[in-house]
């Protein structure tokens, strides 16, 4: 089943299914998944250990913190997603599924699809149909007609919506990798050749930057239609809002210190033991050209270079 090209029925089923339903980029074995899973399997148990590991992580304020990250950043983030990690009690499998998200969108110029070829028109009709169905599902049959569903559904909106149905099993995908490695990943401009199908799909839908940051009981994902290079300031902001692992971040937000200082109040000294992340900021400017992307240079999986001077 391919959500990107499938019809309404599969899309609605995907929304109904629990996080157990994996998708091409989340499956471990040859994309084996069934779209006819009408019976929803029981949802996996939340990781009980995770709460103990992240005592400061507060789910209640998650939405506010996601908004603060997006609206309060100098960078132009298009969306933020929090992937919630859980453990399937029966199989011991680790799963990342939709936890929460905040969509901001981008400038009209960039997001509007033009020109509208017949294929693009058909795609728009498909998206609008799904949106109408979802809208009536949420609001109930008695809802007043919503004019907003007649408006064009942009690529990034669609990507965000489809993301709600996705999950990552046992460390697959960019979010899964970040979780298992315990290391943030920042891809700016090399998205089209990333080792993760969802990341490549993101590129097709107009995104140019994707960041996955393991926090608390899951992974924070940020995406932008702009090429946003990593800065110590943005890392500090993420840490102060969400923490870097064991720490839960703080809300209301504490003003991060000057970038050169690592903030121990965030709960971990991960920044100091995390030189591979800082290394990404040193990627050469030539990587702006997508055709010259060197994915291995932009993904923090290998051993870290020497630490930066104090």
């Amino acid at each position, binding site marked *: 089943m391919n959500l990107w090209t499938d019809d309404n029925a599969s899309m609605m089923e995907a929304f109904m299914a629990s996080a157990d339903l994996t998708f091409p980029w989340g499956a471990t074995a040859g994309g084996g998944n069934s779209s006819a899973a009408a019976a929803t399997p029981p949802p996996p148990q939340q990781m009980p250990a995770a709460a103990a590991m992240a005592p400061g992580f507060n789910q209640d304020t998650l939405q506010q913190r996601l908004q603060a990250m997006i609206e309060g950043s100098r960078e132009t983030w298009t969306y933020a997603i929090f992937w919630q990690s859980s453990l399937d009690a029966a199989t011991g499998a680790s799963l990342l599924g*939709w936890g929460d998200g905040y969509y901001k969108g981008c400038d009209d110029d960039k997001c509007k699809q033009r020109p509208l070829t017949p294929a693009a028109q058909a*795609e728009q009709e498909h998206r609008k149909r799904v949106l109408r169905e979802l809208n009536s599902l*949420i609001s109930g*049959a008695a809802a007043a007609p919503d*004019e907003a569903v007649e408006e064009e559904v942009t690529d990034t909106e669609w990507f965000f919506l489809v993301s709600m149905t996705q999950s990552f099993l046992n460390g697959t995908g960019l979010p899964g990798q970040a979780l298992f490695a315990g290391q943030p990943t920042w891809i700016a401009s090399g998205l089209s050749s990333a080792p993760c199908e969802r990341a490549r799909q993101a590129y097709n839908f107009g995104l140019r930057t994707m960041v996955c940051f393991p926090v608390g009981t899951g992974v924070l994902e940020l995406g932008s239609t702009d090429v946003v290079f990593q800065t110590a300031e943005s890392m500090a902001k993420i840490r102060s809002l969400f923490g870097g692992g064991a720490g839960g971040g703080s809300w209301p937000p504490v003003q991060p210190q000057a970038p050169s200082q690592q903030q121990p109040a965030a709960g971990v000294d991960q920044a100091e033991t995390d030189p591979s992340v800082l290394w990404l900021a040193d990627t050469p400017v030539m990587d702006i050209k997508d055709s010259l992307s060197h994915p291995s240079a932009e993904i923090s999986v290998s051993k870290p270079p020497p630490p930066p001077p104090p």
Partner: protein
Amino acid sequence: MPSMAPVELDFLGLRPAAAAAAAADHNHHGSTTSSSSSIRGMKTSAIASIGAHQLRRVIVGDVEAPPKQQAPMTVFYNGAVATFDGVSQFKAEAIMKMAMEVTTSNGGRVVVRGDAFAGNLSKDDMPLTRTKSLQQFLQKRKERLSGLGPYQLGMGPGGTSRVGAATTNKSFHVKEEAAA
């Protein structure tokens, strides 16, 4: 990406590819179990046993329902799925009522989940996190596209102003694209 094409289904798998719709129109009546017919090119063996004639009248007949009272209808039957686009509330209720009548007369069970006439899918089937996020997304999108904040978009008698604003916004978009 193609829009959804009509799906051919043999619900009960009883019959190999049968005669065309034209023949079915005249030869099959009422609730004969061995009939098979097609509606808009779709094999509908099981539905035909309900009463092909009645069903066709219901599905194809009435075209007066305004578009906004029409909705897609998804039917899950015995492992097969069919989605009908543009089914009016009235038609949907009629189909479901008929299915229920046939089921009970055959000695089957009628399992009704939530509001029987709100369709097979209800938001209770969706994981809560997803429902909440979807709600927020749709609400914020409404606000964004109608150019109003949450306070102007309130419930109740805000109808007129909202429609007005939406219309204004639409023409604004049109102008934008014309200029672009």
